[in-house]
């Protein structure tokens, strides 16, 4: 029993980290998947202000994708949606 438990924990530790850990081993890559792609991801739309505000500064600029870990394709979609929302003064 003990062996199986240990092996389970080992598997989780190895590979890419999905959460920042205080006791993280050096050399492991920090990895977070894109929050906007996937099956149950929200739709990027210029009318969806709540979503757009998550990915912009309060001043209105876009947050960089290296902070939010949004994929390149979705970042392009976001940029277009933000510009449209700015035009009709929603953001």
């Amino acid at each position: 029993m003990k062996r199986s438990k240990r092996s389970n924990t080992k598997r989780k530790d190895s590979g890419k980290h999905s959460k920042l850990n205080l006791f993280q081993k050096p050399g492991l890559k920090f990895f977070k998947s894109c929050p906007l792609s996937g099956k149950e991801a929200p739709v990027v739309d210029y009318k969806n202000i709540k979503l757009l505000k998550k990915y912009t500064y309060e001043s209105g600029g876009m947050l960089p994708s290296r902070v939010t870990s949004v994929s390149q394709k979705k970042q392009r979609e976001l940029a277009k949606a933000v510009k449209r929302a700015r035009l009709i003064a929603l953001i």
Partner: protein
Amino acid sequence: MNSYEHTLITPGNMSETQNQKIFDKYKNIITKNSGKIIKTEEWGIRNLAHKIKRNKKGFYFHIKLEGDGKTIKELERAENIDESLIRFLTVKVKKHDLETNFFEKEDVYKKFGKK
């Protein structure tokens, strides 16, 4: 036939009847120029994120329509001349999303006490 979404903004200090007149006018233009209205939404009076033509508030209308390039061309030509509009936006979409409404309709005129 293409699918479009169209948003209109009128100044916030206009009355309900005035707003409705403007809205009906553009609906007529769409239907006359071989367009087809699928859904209309009224988002009501909203605070503008920044001032547009000295206005702080605006009344939002939203139309989901089907038509071709000529419909949009004629619609935007009429809107460019109109001085009672703050701004408008047309967006081409692949498919209309008729279920989600991001702006629930409120009784705006009750809230702000204007008639």
